């Protein structure tokens, strides 16, 4: 009996302590915000949120559940912002009272496994890339490839196409680019987070694609630039919309973000592949944050805006370490103007 009483009183003390801790947390300044969606931005958002929490004490809990789920959750209002690799249309945004703006920029690169060809040696243009991925160009010694690569010794080797098997923003932007540069692709395969690939084999995730590309001699695939760089896979240089052959790098991705026609795009509803700038890497992607224009939770929304503002201004080191590209200042200005004009604070 005595024992039982002691236990009860101990439990009581513990409960009081726990309650005190909880109360303490509530009365402190920190606000916890939640976001969910795209896995493409997950690495950089988690770095940013760690640095932001250190600075302000506000924690961001980001769930990398996929763009589709992110959009579904923001529509239901269970999170403070959603993140999607595909922009929502202005009609959809208006219907749910949502607004969207870009978070960060990243590049997608074609990667190849041809013996004797290392990174930056092969050069392709969009039309040829589309024909390869359609299965119309079947061999590496095809004259169309040779014409773009004078001086490069091309083997007679069957081309194996490797694509993503899972639905992804990478596929969305890559197929969007092919649709823009190849009318045949645009009318038959179209673009989306997953498409009906005319040929090839599907690997799950960036790691699945790069694993297949490494295993299969004569293969071509596409992965995020950061992934190709960190894993030292031979990437392909691309001829951009302005006709200039470019290496994939941060400057090229930033140029694409800066020269894309944002002025003509309501709610930043613009996919920036095949951007017109002279130095713009043609397969550049962004991820959009999606939020309510009329905040459901004013306090949280304020912190979300503060988080993005802080990230745009101070997020370069984290983004660059992960091979993402921070938004160019011109675009950040447009976004902040959009916040001021379209969102209620």
């Amino acid at each position, binding site marked *: 009996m005595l024992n039982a009483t002691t236990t009860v009183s101990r439990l009581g003390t513990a409960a009081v302590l726990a309650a005190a801790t909880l109360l303490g947390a509530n009365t402190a300044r920190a606000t916890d915000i939640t976001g969910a969606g795209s896995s493409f931005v997950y690495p950089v958002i988690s770095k940013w949120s760690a640095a932001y929490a250190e600075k302000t004490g506000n924690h961001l809990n980001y769930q990398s559940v996929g763009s589709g789920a992110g959009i579904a959750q923001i529509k239901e209002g269970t999170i403070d912002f959603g993140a999607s690799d595909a922009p929502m249309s202005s009609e959809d945004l208006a219907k749910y009272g949502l607004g969207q703006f870009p978070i960060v920029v990243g590049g997608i690169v074609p990667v190849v496994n041809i013996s004797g060809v290392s990174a930056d040696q092969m050069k392709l243009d969009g039309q040829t890339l589309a024909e390869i991925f359609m299965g119309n160009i079947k061999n590496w010694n095809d004259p169309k490839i040779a014409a773009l690569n004078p001086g490069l010794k091309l083997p007679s080797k*069957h081309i194996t196409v490797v694509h993503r*098997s899972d*639905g992804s923003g990478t596929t969305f932007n890559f197929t969007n680019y092919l649709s823009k540069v190849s009318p045949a692709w645009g009318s038959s395969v179209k673009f*989306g987070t997953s498409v009906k690939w005319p040929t090839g084999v599907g690997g799950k995730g960036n790691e699945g694609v790069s*694993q297949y590309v490494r295993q299969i001699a*004569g293969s071509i695939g596409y992965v995020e630039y950061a992934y190709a760089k960190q894993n030292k896979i031979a990437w392909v240089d691309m001829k951009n919309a302005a006709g200039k052959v470019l290496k994939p790098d941060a400057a090229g991705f930033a140029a694409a973000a800066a020269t894309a026609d944002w002025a003509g795009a309501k709610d930043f509803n613009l996919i920036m592949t095949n951007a017109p700038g002279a130095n713009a890497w043609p397969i550049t992607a962004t991820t959009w944050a999606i939020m309510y224009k009329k905040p459901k939770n004013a306090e949280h929304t304020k912190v979300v805006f503060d988080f993005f503002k802080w990230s745009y201004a101070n997020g370069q080191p984290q983004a660059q370490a992960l091979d993402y590209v921070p938004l160019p200042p011109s675009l950040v200005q447009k976004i902040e103007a959009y916040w001021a004009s379209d969102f209620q604070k």
Partner: protein
Amino acid sequence: MSSLPSVAAPPPDQDVRSRLDARNDRWFAWLLKGCALLVLAALLGAAFATLWGGRHAFSTFGWHFLVSPAWDPGTDTYGALVPVYGTVVTSLVAVVLAVPVSFGIALFLTEVAPGWLRTPIASAIELLAGIPSIIYGMWGLFLFAPFFAEHIKPWLTAYLGNNPDGDHPSWVYDHLPFIGKLFSTDYPFGASVLTAGIVLAIMIIPFISSVMREVFMTVPTRLKESAYALGSSTWEVVWDIVLPYTRSAVIGGIFLGLGRALGETMAVTFVLGNTLNLSASLLDPGASIASTIANQFSEAVGLQKSALMALAFLLFVVTFIVLLIARLMLRRLAIKEGR
């Protein structure tokens, strides 16, 4: 009790006790019934939920959903033929490969192996059953698929099918085109229907062989020893005594393995190649129901999501049909044996 006046009425204590017992028994029976019904409710609930989720796909495409090979998110047209075909073929390949091996393992452990070896090997097999499927998938992708592409696939295409480099078709391809078609491919890499079947076979061997081993041990020693006494070889004892005695349980074990192969997701996703194009060749990449769902579900919206739910429902149907076939086979066996 009261009808027997010669027996003294039980003391009231005991009466209360027996009534309490009866009530407790009733409650216990309800509890057990509840447990059993829970399984049924979960099964029906899951089946109904997938059917409900897939209703848009079923109503949009009707019967075409079952027979159409198109899976095209670009035009929002979906058909289940390729994933269903992939699921059935990979599982069949797995069973065809796993059954003889499992049979050998079980025989070795019950009839041939010395006593001190039996327990360690049996435990090792059970451990194999506990390995998560993602590990099999990684192993398949990083180690087995390259090995398969380098050593097994060229041999198969050269001797049974058509060479990818187009030198000349094999004798089998010329004379037995049906078999030749199964082993012809343009794809030079390791991920294929056959690879997935082999990885699945390795995954289900522990299940089938443990069941076989357990039931082989139930065969009465006196039956086997009588046969040995009459001069039978080990093989004759196994084929004529052990197998007939345990046939229905062995078939049950095989279908347990098949059921697992049908629903396996991660390992298959890694080594199947994930191509939603219909192909008769075992060496071409393919797609299964589970791998298609795992690949596309997170980013799917609208009709595509509904089509994936419909696929999940079809997996229920396929599994149900397989179990039904198992039941029918067992019943036919029972009739044949006059039981």
